[in-house]
């Protein structure tokens, strides 16, 4: 019932009790929903392709739709430098930031420990759902080389019938993934290599954390079940979301620059300065 805005000179991020809803630019508005989901991992005896477990090598979800994670609380913080929406659920939390002078939305997320009390391995993804009509086409960079066009359930060289329609549409994302229609390009910049796809119209999905309880029999010989101090691992990462005009050369160039800026972030050193006065410094 209430709506909240984060804004700077480039964009506005609208949010209400259901979470983030719109990204508003001076010349266009894009519907936006950002939500965690998780896929549950298959469990099998690995004797043939239909009874294979999801493991370190193989992403093999047991359902064709992921389970959504609802945020329990929202909080807004506003200041001169940055404005934030903080959303939390039981096993993941998100901070959406809009900085003054910067044309992107930053998503700082913390995921984990992934609960496995129900004896089911889980693979957590973040979905950015928009109203961009991409018709199954999306683009990923290929291990830092050229950007490649991907199309849902298709390969450019041969006729494809996917036995595993979810995992078969996942591609490596090294620095960016984007989708577009004639007016809007939505780009997600990642701070590390992640698996990514676009399974639904206008949606970008990126896998950010995995905890699995079975070996997939491809050689590692153990489950991907990393534990520290008796708990599963906690992951912190960052995505930057850009909304660009694909017909504007300046904007698409800035996308390349921000991708590099996210990957080659500044190196920060902190030094004590008790022995020096401000004037001397």
């Amino acid at each position: 019932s209430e709506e909240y805005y984060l804004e700077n000179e480039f964009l506005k991020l609208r949010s209400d009790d259901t979470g983030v809803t719109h990204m508003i630019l001076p010349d266009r508005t894009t519907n936006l929903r950002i939500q965690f989901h998780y896929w549950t991992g298959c469990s099998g005896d690995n004797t043939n392709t239909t009874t294979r477990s999801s493991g370190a090598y193989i992403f093999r979800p047991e359902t064709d739709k992921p389970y959504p994670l609802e945020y329990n609380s929202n909080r807004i913080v506003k200041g001169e430098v940055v404005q934030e929406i903080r959303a939390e659920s039981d096993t993941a939390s998100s901070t959406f930031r809009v900085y003054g002078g910067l044309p992107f939305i930053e998503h700082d997320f913390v995921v984990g420990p992934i609960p496995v009390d129900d004896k089911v391995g889980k693979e957590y993804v973040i979905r950015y759902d928009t109203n961009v009509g991409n018709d199954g086409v999306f683009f990923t960079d290929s291990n830092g080389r050229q950007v490649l066009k991907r199309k849902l359930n298709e390969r450019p060289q041969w006729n494809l019938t996917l036995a595993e329609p979810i995992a078969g549409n996942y591609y490596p994302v090294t620095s960016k993934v984007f989708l577009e229609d004639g007016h809007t390009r939505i780009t997600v910049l990642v701070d590390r290599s992640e698996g990514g796809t676009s399974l639904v119209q206008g949606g970008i999905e990126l896998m950010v954390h995995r905890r699995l309880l079975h070996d997939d029999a491809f050689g590692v010989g153990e489950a991907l079940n990393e534990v520290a101090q008796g708990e599963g691992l906690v992951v912190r990462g960052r995505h930057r979301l850009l909304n660009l005009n694909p017909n504007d050369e300046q904007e698409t160039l800035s996308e390349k620059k921000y991708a590099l800026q996210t990957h080659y972030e500044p190196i920060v050193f902190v030094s004590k300065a008790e022995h020096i006065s401000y004037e001397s410094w």
Partner: protein
Amino acid sequence: KFVIDELKSAMGVMQHHDAITGTEKQHVAHDYERLLDNAVEDALLVARQGISKLSKSEKYQFNYERCRLNESSCATSEDSQQFVVTVYNPLGWNTLEPIRIPVLDGEYEVYAPNGEKVTSQLLDIPNPVRKIPTRKSGATHELTFIAKLHPLSIKSFFIKKMQRTRRGIDYRSIKNYWSNIGSPYIVENIDYVGNIGTDKIVVPSHVSGTGSNINFDVLTDEDLNVGRAENMRNRDKVPRNME
């Protein structure tokens, strides 16, 4: 050269397909962490020497520490009343980059190399909802500012913690004070604004009672039921009158 070679060697090992994709056994993953961490730490020696040389400060020696984990924790900034943040921009063009430094609660001023005060903001670090093993750090806040960086440049910022924020008043004492006067309210986001015992603060009108020398933001049970986002919004509307 030998420490750079050590890092080159570790990076060579990390080209193995198991290291890239995470399909190594767990004890191998730990060994990779050990190899890489040792090599990066040693190679930082060269970076530190390089920055010291470039800063051309023979009189004052700085010990450049780098926090490599992406968690809100930094022993140097948490323990210091004043410190220098040195930022290296590895890109070949001008950038604006948000810098977030973990600190204790207080009031800070950030200065750019030309002596100008940089706009900064102190943000509290959210506590995890679940009781999980978390970062080992005393930092409760992050000091945030935007650094304007030149291509392939190094820039230093001087950060001072303002003394008036640490005069023996802390969250616990405010909370005790508030409970002593029988208030059912929860006190959050306390800003100390003056000399103890001499300044008066008017608290928001929907709260009965006044504080003697502290600026209160008070959340009622009703506020909490409505939701945190709502009361954060309301908080911005509340005028902060100081006598």
